[in-house]
């Protein structure tokens, strides 16, 4: 039985019906990890307590207390704290960090009886779009192992695509759930800012970060999203929200979908353009209304995003001094010398670049020209979204300008990698929800993703649209995925 091809709903029925047990399902995934992960390298840590969690889940099932995720095998991005389970952020700085507490999302999933199969690889401190900056090595795309899985949640997307877990959690600061989901042919949701608590998510850029689900389908994402959503006293930006699962299956006819022309200009590959335009045609055939709209400030989105994110990162990463936790250098005579040696050894090159950029943007003499200007542009981009949503229910864009690139292809100039985020960062800047789902394949067989962007807290509406599309879409799975 190809259990890894089944949805959460199908697995729920098998578990509740006694056709399989939670430990059997967990062992099934452990076997797949042993077989496939030496090639994919999606995991930084496989949880040696997973079987214990599965046994506890089985007791919940047998006592009739099972919820939607009881016994379901999940992977967790390695920047989400899991009590007693190593959480590295893919950095030497946190190579041996064992969190003393759960992130709120992890606590909710544990209470729901989910099984944590392991911690998933990512770009170091979530800074990257390729999962090549991880201290623990490169994760490979299951559709072509010479290519990147995207990033920063590359391990989370690759693990789902290769059937190494049922679904996973990622985090998205500038596209880090949607772009890897697009590259690996799976579905990923960046929720509305505030829908999911960030407590226990290792901070990169606090005004942009959001935890979200990656799954084989929009429906699987909806189940996972409902399990982790909600206001949390430990995160003052979190808010209560309605569950999204009841919105799935609602008619989509009449939905007005905006197509911002700036997202279809120079730099977009012809294959991606064709696939997204074909998807727009499919929505039209379902009775949706396609409407041309405009976002003139898209051309400033990359610098605005990188200045804001790096400024926040330079502040957030100031905490890594090797004193309370994390790597501590043995070099240096004084406290200051050891602090500098610790940070030099603990952080990789991309993290150092972002710290320098953020420090520059916040420093005296440059603040107004860079950081403040970026904040003003953030307001302008938000207002442009508000204008679009006066006449549209959602927006359709490509998720990335191209298919997954080859490992090492963008290793030279760092800005090449930054520009790959062009279609995703405005969503974080505006705090909106967006889901990426597969809408086609390139001539080389690589998945192509499209994004549906919704109004704040309309996560359910865009998941429902994605679900409607997925039901009609013909998926192509390769050997790794099968």
């Amino acid at each position, binding site marked *: 039985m190809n259990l890894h091809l089944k949805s959460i709903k199908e697995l729920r029925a098998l578990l509740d019906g006694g056709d399989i047990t939670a430990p059997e399902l967990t062992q099934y995934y452990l076997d797949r990890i042993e077989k496939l992960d030496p090639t994919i390298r999606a995991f930084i840590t496989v949880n040696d307590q997973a079987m214990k969690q599965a046994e506890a889940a089985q007791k919940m099932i047998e006592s009739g207390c099972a919820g939607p995720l009881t016994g379901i095998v999940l992977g967790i991005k390695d920047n989400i704290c899991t009590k007693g389970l190593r959480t590295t952020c893919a950095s030497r700085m946190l190579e041996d960090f064992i969190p003393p507490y759960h992130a709120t999302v992890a606590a909710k999933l544990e209470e729901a009886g989910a099984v944590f199969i392991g911690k998933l690889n990512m770009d170091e401190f979530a800074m990257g779009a390729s999962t090549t900056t991880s201290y623990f090595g490169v994760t490979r795309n299951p559709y072509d192992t010479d290519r990147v899985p995207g990033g920063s949640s590359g391990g989370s997307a690759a693990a789902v695509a290769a059937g190494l877990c049922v679904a996973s959690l990622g985090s998205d600061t500038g596209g880090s759930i949607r772009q890897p989901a697009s590259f690996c042919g799976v579905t990923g949701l960046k929720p509305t800012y505030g829908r999911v608590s960030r407590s226990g998510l290792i901070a990169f850029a606090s005004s942009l970060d959001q935890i979200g689900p990656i799954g084989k389908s929009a429906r699987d994402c909806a189940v996972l999203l409902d399990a982790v959503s909600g206001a949390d006293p430990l995160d003052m*930006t979190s808010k209560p929200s309605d569950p999204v699962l009841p919105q799935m299956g609602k008619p989509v006819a009449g939905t007005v979908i905006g197509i911002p022309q700036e997202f279809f200009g120079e730099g977009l590959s012809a294959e991606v353009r064709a696939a997204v335009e074909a998807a727009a045609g499919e929505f039209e055939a379902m009775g949706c209304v396609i409407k041309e709209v405009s976002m003139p400030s898209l051309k400033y989105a990359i*610098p605005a995003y990188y200045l804001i994110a790096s400024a926040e990162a330079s502040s957030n990463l100031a905490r890594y001094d090797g*004193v309370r*936790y994390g790597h501590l250098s043995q070099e240096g005579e004084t406290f200051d010398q050891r602090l500098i040696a610790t*940070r030099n050894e603990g952080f990789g090159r991309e993290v*150092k*670049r972002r710290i320098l950029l953020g420090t520059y943007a916040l420093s005296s003499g440059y603040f107004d020209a860079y950081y*403040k200007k970026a904040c003003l542009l953030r307001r302008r981009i938000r207002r442009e979204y508000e204008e679009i949503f006066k006449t549209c229910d959602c927006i359709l864009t490509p998720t990335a300008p191209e298919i997954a690139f080859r490992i090492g292809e963008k290793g030279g100039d760092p800005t090449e990698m*930054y*520009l790959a985020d062009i279609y995703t960062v405005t969503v974080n800047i505006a705090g909106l929800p967006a889901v990426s789902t597969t809408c086609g394949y390139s001539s080389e067989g690589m998945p192509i993703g499209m994004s549906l962007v919704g109004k704040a807290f309309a996560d359910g509406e865009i998941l429902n649209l994605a679900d409607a599309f997925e039901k009609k879409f013909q998926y192509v799975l390769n050997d790794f995925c099968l």
Partner: protein
Amino acid sequence: MKDYQLIDHLAALSRLSFTGAEKEEMAADMESIMNLMDTITQVEISEEEYPLTAEGGMELLRADEERPSMPAEEVLANAKGKLYHFIAVQKLMD
């Protein structure tokens, strides 16, 4: 133009340091990054049009009341230097 003095200044502010070869690489990287970032410096946009006031969306702060906390042993479990129930660090001054 590569600005090595700027790299030294930013490194000092960031509690980082770069050796000769690293500084060369970082200066080249930063030159490229700043060329990209500079595209926004010429944008005409004003605070009058887009006020940078605090936005809504924050929930109320938690009440300032005593709550249970983790045992000291758990909190200190990841600290490399420990002495009794305290964190031990190198001396800060003679």
